[in-house]
């Protein structure tokens, strides 16, 4: 067979090869995103995602969506403008959560014995699905950034509330009040993480009394819109073949 001949000899063979490519590309994309996104999220979201006693109604709600909309925006740009596939955000979150659960279960629990109910990851799936659907329906980066980015921020806290609410039940312990999450942080010793490192409930957002989570979520959504634009362009920028040398040129 010469180089100019096709590698396949029938339509059935072509379909089979195409499907094989599908799974290979999807697997490669999934694992590459798992690695890259996981490292990115650990470095930027870090402790807010690691520990239940960092999952507060102000900073966790603000930081986690902002730093996590990055890869979904970039991968959406690639999969949508090249293939019209509205699965970029969902693929990212599936990959991230798989990596996170492997890490939390094998490392945090299996290796260092922190209980899983103390070091479970945040749930980012509701925002991812909505982001993908908005892109599919609108076929517009601007619409997805504005509506989807805002939804990404707004859905984060309520999407996680069923998971963290039980840990915000108060308890009296040695004459002081804690939430159960606070007590987890106190009981399960993190030698290298002193309490003052914990960035929770800081800030001057006091005008809204106890209802600061929605305000934080809105702010997070606004910033997520900007971050979405930025990373969407990163996705488009890297999603080129300019770097492949053309033999004929």
């Amino acid at each position, binding site marked *: 067979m010469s180089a100019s001949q096709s590698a396949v000899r029938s339509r059935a063979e072509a379909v089979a090869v195409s499907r094989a490519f599908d799974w290979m590309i999807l697997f490669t994309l999934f694992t590459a995103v798992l690695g890259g996104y996981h490292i990115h999220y650990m470095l930027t979201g870090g402790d807010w995602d690691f520990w239940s006693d960092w999952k507060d109604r102000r900073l966790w709600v603000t930081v986690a969506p902002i730093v996590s909309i990055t890869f979904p925006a970039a991968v959406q740009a690639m999969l949508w403008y090249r293939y019209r596939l509205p699965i970029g955000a969902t693929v990212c979150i599936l990959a991230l959560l798989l990596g996170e659960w492997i890490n939390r279960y094998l490392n945090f629990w299996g290796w260092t*014995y922190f209980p899983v109910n103390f070091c479970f990851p945040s749930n980012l799936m509701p925002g991812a*699905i909505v982001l993908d659907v908005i892109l599919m329906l609108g076929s517009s980066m601007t619409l997805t950034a504005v509506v989807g980015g805002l939804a990404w921020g707004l859905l984060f806290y309520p999407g996680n*509330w069923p998971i963290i609410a039980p840990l915000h039940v108060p308890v009296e312990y040695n004459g002081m009040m804690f*939430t*159960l999450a606070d007590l987890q942080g106190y009981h399960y010793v993190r030698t290298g993480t002193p309490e003052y490192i914990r960035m929770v409930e800081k800030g001057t957002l006091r005008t809204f009394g106890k209802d600061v989570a929605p305000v934080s979520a809105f702010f997070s959504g606004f910033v997520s819109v900007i971050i979405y634009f930025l990373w969407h362009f990163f996705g488009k920028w890297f999603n080129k073949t300019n770097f492949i040398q053309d033999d004929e040129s």
Partner: protein
Amino acid sequence: MKLIKDKVAKLSFVALLVTMTAAIFYTPTASAHGEKSQAAFMRMRTIHWFDLNWSKDEVAVNETMSISGKLHVFAGWPETVDKPEVSFLNIGIPGPVFIRAGSWIGNQLVPRSVTLELGETYTFKVLLKARRPGDWHVHTMMNVEGGGPIIGPGKWVTITGSMGSFVNPLVTLTGETIDLETYGLSNIYFWHALWYAIGLAWLLFWCKRPMFVPRHIAMTTGKRDTLISAGDKKVGILFAVGTMAIVAVSMGSTNDKYPVTTPLQAGLMRGMVPVEMPEPSVVVKVEDATYRVPGRAMQMTLTITNNGDSAVRLGEFMTASVRFLDADVLEDETGYPDDLLAEEGLTVSDGSPIAPGETRTMEVTASDAAWEVYRLADLIYDPDSRFAGLLFFFNEDGERQMVMVDAPLIPSFI
């Protein structure tokens, strides 16, 4: 020749792989906490831990033990370390092998960061509940914001039993009895599994049809509008609406199930009450201090004035958790860690009691391998070559006085 080269290359590669694989299986337990690596001046001139007591050397899972004692916040705190205005009484253990059941400074529970005052002495206690079997080095530890961890002495404690039997029962303010070790686990697994399944369903909906090659061809041949059908949009709307409905309903039902929740508790605790230490009647002036590198010994010339009404003798010099004792005056009966105890490490040029009203200048030598083992000799490489420590004087009745010393140190290399 090429054949031999190829074989050597192949075998080398195999050997490399075998070595790397073997390295994975060599995972010895990390026993120490880097206490010897911490700069000597940090250990000498920040927090002095003394009168320490580890209540047990061996505990079974679910049993408790405590570390208690005093900590002196050194008045000559180094400039290069932030003041202990935000500090946290920690415990130096390899992860949650114990749970910290309680920690107190004075009588105040200190689950959060505290402000400590320079020159003051505080009592402290850390209550630990055994969780994971093994032999663990248990250190006292104070974290200081801007200064890092300041680790105190460590002692080996053995935990026996099975971690599977560990329980951490609590009664919440809503009256529910829970085991914090496993509380809410099934709820966490359920919600994550549900959302993961929904995400997978969305992915599979698109994966069941040809994806990359045909779609790319369609995109480049002007058929992009054919790639998303009306059916696809309907399914997408179903997923989005379903997602928002699940979020809303689950949030509502969670609020019904947990009507009382509170925000995470945080904030600095001030007003730690120091222990009233008796005003020392002994005044010590450091005339000079040298560290003899070859002899692993520090020699001080001290002028000591006894303003009290009973004769006193110098019994102990303590610095960086290493205790140098004069065996004629003091014998340790607290079970202090052997490696930090120089039972005969303190010698004085004139060991006779210093009478009331007397002023005496004498040579005091603190020598022990601990200078080297605990890398205190590295003090000579610190940016501010000073030493500091606590001197303990005893009268005939065994009453103790604590005097702090802080002075420049000159190294001697011959």
